[in-house]
């Protein structure tokens, strides 16, 4: 219910506030609304007028993305003039939301299509997570600048290190923490970048998802192994 209310706040049209009531309205009530409108009855009957407006609003919202089959069901009674204007013939069926074609209450379908969960599930527009990943990519990049310089200098100093030297070097808690941070942050940064590459070039939803999951799993295993090794060296 709160989903719908949120959706209604975004709409600019008149009569939007009534959709909460509308959601509870049965088909019969709606039919009454249409009948009332057709018979020339004016705004005196408040409840049936709301229903009529809501019908029209729902149909209008669907105009840009939907095909005529559903539109005919919802819009005929209100306004027959623009009935089939946007019938694009259904050539690219993949982009059409199949759910919206079933002959159901148009206002409910409209509310469903605008709900965040539905958009998220269908991958329509922003799932409101893109900016967070973008920020993490930049922040990890920023953190990696000093860490990578420290790491490069350390590697240069460790060039001819024996095993004893290496153990001694890694056993320092400060170095262990810095190295753990470097590897974990670098892996986080790498997972984001490689995921973007996979999303660009791997075709097929199942394969793409599988690749991303394998990538994330591998990064997790590597990070865990490094931290375990560092703990072992520090407390040995």
């Amino acid at each position, binding site marked *: 219910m709160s989903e719908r209310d949120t959706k209604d706040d975004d709409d600019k049209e008149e009569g939007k506030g009534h959709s909460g009531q509308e959601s509870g309205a049965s088909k019969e009530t709606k039919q009454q609304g249409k009948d009332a409108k057709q018979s020339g009855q004016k705004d005196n009957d408040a409840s049936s007028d709301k229903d009529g407006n809501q019908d029209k609003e729902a149909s209008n919202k669907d105009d840009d993305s939907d095909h005529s089959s559903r539109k005919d069901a919802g819009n005929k009674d209100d306004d027959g003039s623009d009935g089939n204007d946007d019938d694009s013939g259904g050539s690219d069926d*993949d982009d059409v939301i199949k759910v919206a074609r079933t002959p159901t209450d148009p206002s409910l379908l409209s509310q469903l299509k605008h709900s965040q969960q539905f958009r998220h599930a269908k991958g329509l527009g922003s799932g409101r997570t893109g900016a967070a990943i973008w920020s993490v990519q930049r922040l990890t990049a920023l953190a990696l600048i000093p860490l990578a310089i420290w790491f490069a200098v350390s590697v240069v100093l460790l060039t001819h290190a024996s095993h004893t030297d290496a153990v001694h070097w890694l056993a320092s808690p400060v170095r262990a923490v810095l190295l753990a941070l470097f590897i974990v942050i670098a892996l986080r940064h*790498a997972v984001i*970048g490689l995921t973007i590459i996979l999303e*660009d070039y791997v075709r097929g939803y199942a394969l793409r998802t599988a690749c991303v999951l394998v990538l994330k799993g591998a990064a997790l295993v590597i990070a865990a192994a490094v931290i375990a*090794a560092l703990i072992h060296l520090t407390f040995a």
Partner: protein
Amino acid sequence: MSRPISPHLTWYKPQITSVLSIMHRFTGIALAAGALALAWWVVAVAIGGEVFTGTTAVYTSVIGQIVLALWTLALAFHMSNGIRHLCWDAGWGFQMRQVRSSGWLTLAMTVILTALVWVFVLLV
């Protein structure tokens, strides 16, 4: 589903802007593999014994040194170009003249940083 995917590299004429952008991706992939090599080195130190000896032998072999040098190059480039990207994110350097000159600066920094590291490794 037959939606368009990203255009492939061969469609474009090489320019300093596009070449550096592509190199950023390739060096990123290479550095992810480099992170794996670093992680393995830490684990090898913890395990010790023959595992550490074997790892050191691989890393100090000729091929190992060449790969490590390429990783240094990749790290220097990815970091320099990454700083360039962060500057763009902050809104700096969007004039085409600036974009090109910062690109050449990135390449210069890559060579300088890589040379610095390897001069120390080989001479000190």
